């Protein structure tokens, strides 16, 4: 499938899934499931970061305007996008990234995915809940929200990839 069409479909699907379904769920204990950073994460390795920032901005605005969060999702997603190349460089394999691959769970291996995506998602969630509460005396509640939401969001992301991304053939 054409790359542009594939990523456009992912953009629309993830934005609407987040805004109309996941943001309406109440799980309790302050848990909020956020999967939309997956769109930015799965963009090609050699994709320009400027374009990526614009895409992140657009996606954040779409989710924010539907959910009345006025820039909260945008800010966290921009931070996620800005840190993506830096974290990728930190966890790069010795011979560099294979540009023909996509950065998903199956092609890069579960170990790499857990480290890199988990770390980026941790920063995203912490920044999001920090801005949402914005009080220093609520720091324990912020940490509770972050560390309870993180595994659930990660699980959702893994499930989404298992459902919608075709596994490469075993060699």
């Amino acid at each position, binding site marked *: 499938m054409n790359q542009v069409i594939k990523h456009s479909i992912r953009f629309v699907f993830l934005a609407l899934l987040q805004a109309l379904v996941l943001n309406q769920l*109440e799980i309790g204990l302050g848990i909020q499931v956020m999967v939309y950073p997956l769109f930015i994460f799965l963009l090609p390795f050699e994709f320009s970061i*400027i374009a990526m920032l614009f895409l992140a901005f657009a996606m954040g605005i779409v989710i*924010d305007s539907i959910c*009345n969060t*006025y*820039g*909260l999702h945008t800010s966290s997603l*921009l931070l996620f996008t800005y840190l993506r190349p830096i974290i990728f460089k930190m966890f790069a394999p010795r011979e560099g990234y294979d540009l023909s691959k996509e950065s998903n769970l199956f092609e890069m291996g579960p170990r790499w995915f857990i480290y890199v995506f988990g770390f980026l998602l941790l920063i995203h969630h912490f920044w999001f809940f920090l801005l*949402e509460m914005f009080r220093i005396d609520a720091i324990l509640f912020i940490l509770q929200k972050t560390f309870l939401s993180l595994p659930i969001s990660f699980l959702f992301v893994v499930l989404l990839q298992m459902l919608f991304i075709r596994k490469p053939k075993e060699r």
Partner: protein
Amino acid sequence: MRNLFAFLRRFQVFLLFTFMQVFALYTYFTYLNFPRSQYLTSASKVAGTFLSAKHEVTKHLNLSKNNTALQKENIHLRSQLPMSFVRLENGLVKINDTLFKQQYDYIPALVINSTFTKANNYFTLNIGSAQGIEKDMGVFSDKGIVGIIHNVSEHFSVVKSVLTENINIDVMIESDGSFGLLKWDGKHPRRGSISGISNDTRIKRWSKVVTKGGSGIFPRGIPVGKVEKLRTVEGKPIWDVVVLFSENYRTLQRVYVIKNLLKEEQKKIESLIPEDKPK
């Protein structure tokens, strides 16, 4: 000049990131308190259309519960109609009363989008300025208060709900009339608190809390909830009163918007109070 361009090119990613981040944070922190436009909120036309479509699907989830509540209210209202009274004295004619003038009018509305897990929760209603909604009107349901209109477009409006941190509605304890401001701490969607009641007043548990109706947004006596417990505040002579809301905002669908017909008059007379001049 060339150095400047070189600098800009070198840090272009960081500059773009900073610029967008500042924009996002600026809108986040200003829109929370002073919304200036309806773009980028769920009152906008595009987002409103999406949310209406979503509501078409999800409205059936709580339908039977909502219908029961409406039926109860209908029974209550029907019992006050003239046809449900026995006439005791013949010859009495009902005349148009001049002792009472209507002050509040109510506009029915549907909640098409709501959140309850965030630190600040907003509800979207399916009516807007075309139906006569204005900013700062009160909103309540058959069980209790809901919030204040925050932002209006032509066909949608956004309510700043009771579940926001600085909602500050005047409420009072119905039995003795001691009053304070309603607050929410951002944690549990069933519990709020009242601040400003001094701790020499005695408050019974489970006494009713209603609106005070001072600012002309809500009439007096709309239910808010019940006092669940009292907590002492360290170093201050006031109670922290925990209120259990009577409305469950998770299943809220049908609400009424309050139109105060005498609001202009109240504003006009209150603007005559001389302002305190700094000495």
